[in-house]
């Protein structure tokens, strides 16, 4: 059988899904060909704004590397299809390629609508749809102070969030009297406006723009029909979308009155050899501007073409849950009570900033829809009640009244859902499919469950439900989720930390006797040494602790590949006097150490033999240095920029603060190393947003970012609180660090810890700022103990001859390790490489 040509125009989210499904169904009989107008293959448009939060184009990509190549899909990247010849059954592209088709699929998506306002093409106007758009916005915003978003719908608010994060004074201009007119009602819109204004974005409703006025060829101001005006440096239009049906029109396919390519239940257009899917398609006079219905269309069309299964597209649920500017908004089912006899129950709480509305049927027994603003945590459960027609409790209002303390919420949990319940609507995953994966594939953890079922990998809205389901299934199966430290302790690090503190345990042996077995190992010993240090801050080389330490901690220096060590004195905030520099140089010279500036704003002295360490430190301490803990899972450096002391842009004295912070937390031991930085203004020269906690100066105080990370898997830190005075800042850091130390796993840095934290940033804010767990006083007291009991480990060590005598290579000789050989490179010493050893004929005896 000869293969048929199948051309897909558009490689967006839906076009890609379609190809995936075709391949899944078995594409042996097809030549798959796709035109992709953008310069990159399909990416996650839903999470487009993540681009501003640090996601790269690769992170957003939906296409596994080589996926198309491996499955022989012919791709034309950066080439737009421009003409369809239905009689000749061929497609022509902008680059002049013409390819014949047997079947054609249009997945051209939509374009942002720009209202016909005078001046709409002025330099400084943008739309928000593609990665290219965002790159242009980001570049232009650098020269702007004020930004306006035209359109207060779902995308407009997302865009406003982006502008705000780019540091612009942000305004939203909406033509209608309320925000998100499609999803929420007047009361909900009013609350949303209140919440959004509270975080510093100005909202202007009922405003119709008449003109965009330019100055020096750039956007300068907007004028409105009511005679008012607004000055701005840039404008982003987000006033709705329009289906890209231009090619369909010109080749004579049926299109809707207001646009959109008409399709039937099989997603076929008026020409049965041509299909249309995604945002360009019109079904029963409706465009579906969400990804989930588009995915369903992709599946339906692919199945129809492969003759695989008989599925049909019969419309879709437009329920949405979003987090806009950090505010939850959800709208689902019959949100506007259009069903005859429908009744509404609503609670608006302008103190908490929440609005919740339920729409129930005439008898009050079934839920039809609802709106949630400010807190949408119950969205998943409520949606299930609708989709599965589950009978409501006698007082449906209990579903939206916050539970009084002590009583549990009236919400019915995952257990009450039928097996057919669709838990993840983005990927159409049912409860049965998820339970099946848990039961039959031995999955015990959310990451692999997502990977295996795809549930939760779209908008992420269903993750809480999926997690509940996982927990409940594991519990039913009697599977205990193990997080044991190692074979010697059947406890997690968090549990051991709690045991150490609550039972006042001060040694490894005590903990092993009371709660462990065997003798311990290189996993539990350093972990427990760290817990003991975080809890009691005793000297780590006390006889009871010395054998627990990794070699770096045991010798208070970093071991190198040849068994020598490096020495890194603390240089708080990176500030070093000329005298200190000279002292460092003298020590390095005397002991023949290789010197290098580190990536952490200090100086590393390499190549010290174990017996030299105390001698080196004696001199360093005399010169006023102390341990830099480069060897410990402890606070490392607090990087600083020069700040207002010298810099013409600095708004605060970042160096002084960095020094103060470094001195406060020096020596603090934690599950993993902790790094910090302080920048004197938003230019962020200290890279605070890549640190476990980072501080950035503002005109009004300090912004505190947490849980960032460079290293193997870089992740940007997230804003915990803004414009803090110094006392509050320090208090929050105390709480944050101690909470991390209490709850993280062994060798888990703050970023990884945060990624596993259920409830994410909201939860962290509740714990650290609102003290929702009631532990903040304890956390602060624990930190105060650490700060008060700090002592330089090197000072303690060289003052104690019984400790100094451990720094020898041989127990029975004063000789050095005879195997150490160094050679010179660029005027300094470095350890010899193995291959060089032979050259100088020093071989192992």
């Amino acid at each position, binding site marked *: 059988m000869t293969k048929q040509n199948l051309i897909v125009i558009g490689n967006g989210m839906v076009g890609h899904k379609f190809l995936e499904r075709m391949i899944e169904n078995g594409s042996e009989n097809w030549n798959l060909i796709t035109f992709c107008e953008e310069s990159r293959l399909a990416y996650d448009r839903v999470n487009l704004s993540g681009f501003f939060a640090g996601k790269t184009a690769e992170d957003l990509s939906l296409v596994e590397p080589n996926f198309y190549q491996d499955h022989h899909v012919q791709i034309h990247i950066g080439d737009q299809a421009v003409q369809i010849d239905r009689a000749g059954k061929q497609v022509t592209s902008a680059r002049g390629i013409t390819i014949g088709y047997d079947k054609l699929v249009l997945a051209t998506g939509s374009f942002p609508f720009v209202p016909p306002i005078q001046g709409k093409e002025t330099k400084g106007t943008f739309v928000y749809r593609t990665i290219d758009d965002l790159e242009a916005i980001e570049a232009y915003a650098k020269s702007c102070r004020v930004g306006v978003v035209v359109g207060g719908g779902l995308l407009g608010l997302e865009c406003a969030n982006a502008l705000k994060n780019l540091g612009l004074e942000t305004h939203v201009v909406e033509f209608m009297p309320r925000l998100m007119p499609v999803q929420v009602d007047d009361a909900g819109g009013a609350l949303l406006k209140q919440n959004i204004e509270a975080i510093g974005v100005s909202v202007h409703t009922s405003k119709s723009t008449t003109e965009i006025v330019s100055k020096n060829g750039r956007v300068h101001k907007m004028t409105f029909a009511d005679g008012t005006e607004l000055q701005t440096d840039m404008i982003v239009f987000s006033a709705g979308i329009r289906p890209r049906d231009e090619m369909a029109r010109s080749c004579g396919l049926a299109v809707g009155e207001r646009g959109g390519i008409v399709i039937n239940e099989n997603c076929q257009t008026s020409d049965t050899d041509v299909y249309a899917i995604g945002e360009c398609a019109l079904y029963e006079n409706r465009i579906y501007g969400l990804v989930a219905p588009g995915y369903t269309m992709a599946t339906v069309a692919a199945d129809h073409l492969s003759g695989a299964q008989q599925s049909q597209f019969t419309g879709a649920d437009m329920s949405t849950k979003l987090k806009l500017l950090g505010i939850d908004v959800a709208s689902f089912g019959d949100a506007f009570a259009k069903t005859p006899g429908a009744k509404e129950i609503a609670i608006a709480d302008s103190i908490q900033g929440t609005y919740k509305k339920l729409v129930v049927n005439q008898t009050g027994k079934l839920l039809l829809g609802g709106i949630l603003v400010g807190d949408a945590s119950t969205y998943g459960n409520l949606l299930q009640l609708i989709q599965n027609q589950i009978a409501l409790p006698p007082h449906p209002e209990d579903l939206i009244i916050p539970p009084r303390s002590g009583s549990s919420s009236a919400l019915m949990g995952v257990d009450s859902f039928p097996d057919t319940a669709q838990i993840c609507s983005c990927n159409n995953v049912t409860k049965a499919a998820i339970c099946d994966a848990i039961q039959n594939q031995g999955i015990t953890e959310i990451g692999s469950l997502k990977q295996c079922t795809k549930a939760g990998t779209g908008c992420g809205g269903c993750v809480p439900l999926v997690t509940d389901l996982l927990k409940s299934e594991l519990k039913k199966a009697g599977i205990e989720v193990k997080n044991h430290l190692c074979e010697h302790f059947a406890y997690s690090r968090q549990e051991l930390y709690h045991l150490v503190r609550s039972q006042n345990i001060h040694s490894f042996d005590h903990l092993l006797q009371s709660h462990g077995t*065997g003798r311990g190992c290189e996993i539990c010993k350093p972990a427990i040494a760290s817990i003991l240090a975080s809890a009691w801050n005793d000297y780590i080389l006390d006889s009871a602790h010395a054998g627990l*330490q*990794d*070699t770096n901690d045991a010798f208070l220096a970093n071991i190198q*590949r040849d068994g020598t060590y490096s020495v890194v004195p603390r240089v708080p905030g990176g500030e070093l006097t000329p005298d200190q520099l000279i002292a460092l140089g003298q020590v390095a010279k005397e002991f023949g150490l290789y010197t290098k500036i580190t990536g952490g704003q200090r100086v590393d002295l390499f190549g010290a033999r174990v017996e030299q360490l105390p001698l080196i430190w004696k001199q360093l301490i005399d010169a006023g240095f102390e341990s830099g803990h480069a060897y410990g899972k402890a606070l490392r450096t607090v990087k600083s920029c020069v700040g207002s002391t010298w810099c013409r842009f600095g708004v605060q004295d970042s160096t002084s603060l960095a020094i103060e912070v470094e001195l406060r937390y020096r020596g603090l031991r934690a599950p993993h190393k902790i790094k910090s930085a302080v920048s004197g203004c938003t230019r962020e020269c200290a890279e605070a947003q890549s640190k476990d906690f980072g501080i950035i100066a503002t005109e009004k105080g300090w912004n505190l970012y947490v849980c960032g990370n460079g290293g193997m898997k870089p992740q940007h830190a997230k804003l915990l609180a803004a414009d803090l005075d110094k006392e509050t800042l320090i208090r929050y850091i105390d709480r944050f660090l101690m909470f991390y130390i209490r709850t993280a796993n062994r060798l888990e840095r703050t970023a990884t810890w945060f990624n596993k934290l259920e409830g994410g940033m909201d939860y962290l804010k509740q714990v650290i700022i609102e003290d929702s767990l009631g532990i903040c006083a304890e956390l602060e007291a624990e930190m105060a103990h650490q700060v008060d009991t700090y002592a330089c480990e090197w000072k303690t060590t060289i003052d104690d001859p019984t400790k100094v005598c451990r720094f020898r290579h041989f127990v029975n000789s004063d000789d050095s390790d005879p195997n150490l050989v160094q050679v010179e490179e660029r005027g300094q010493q470095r350890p010899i490489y193995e291959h060089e050893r032979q050259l100088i004929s020093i071989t192992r005896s």
Partner: protein
Amino acid sequence: MQPSQSIATNWLTVCDLEDILPNTGVCALVEGQQVAIFRAGQDALYAIDNYDPFSKAYVLSRGIVGDRNGVPKVASPIYKQNFNLKTGECFDDASVVVRTFAVQLVGNQVQVSLT
């Protein structure tokens, strides 16, 4: 103590028991050979080559002492491979074995024999 001690001769005293903290190791220079001696618990002694075949550095005495399923072991301080203290076998790579030596406690003197 060590099974091999009966056939060992040529015992050399290297240090006192107190020179080795419980559950740590030291390195002794024995006739030009670097020997890592470990004190597991209060008085069980083991001796192996101080040379770490993975990092090619003389550092095994500085590893963390512990056990796997009751078998005493040390983890290399550089790349963390584990060695059976009784046999010198590497738990992580069956093809690698480090030498073991006879060691005994006489009074409070720690003695090693290379033969």
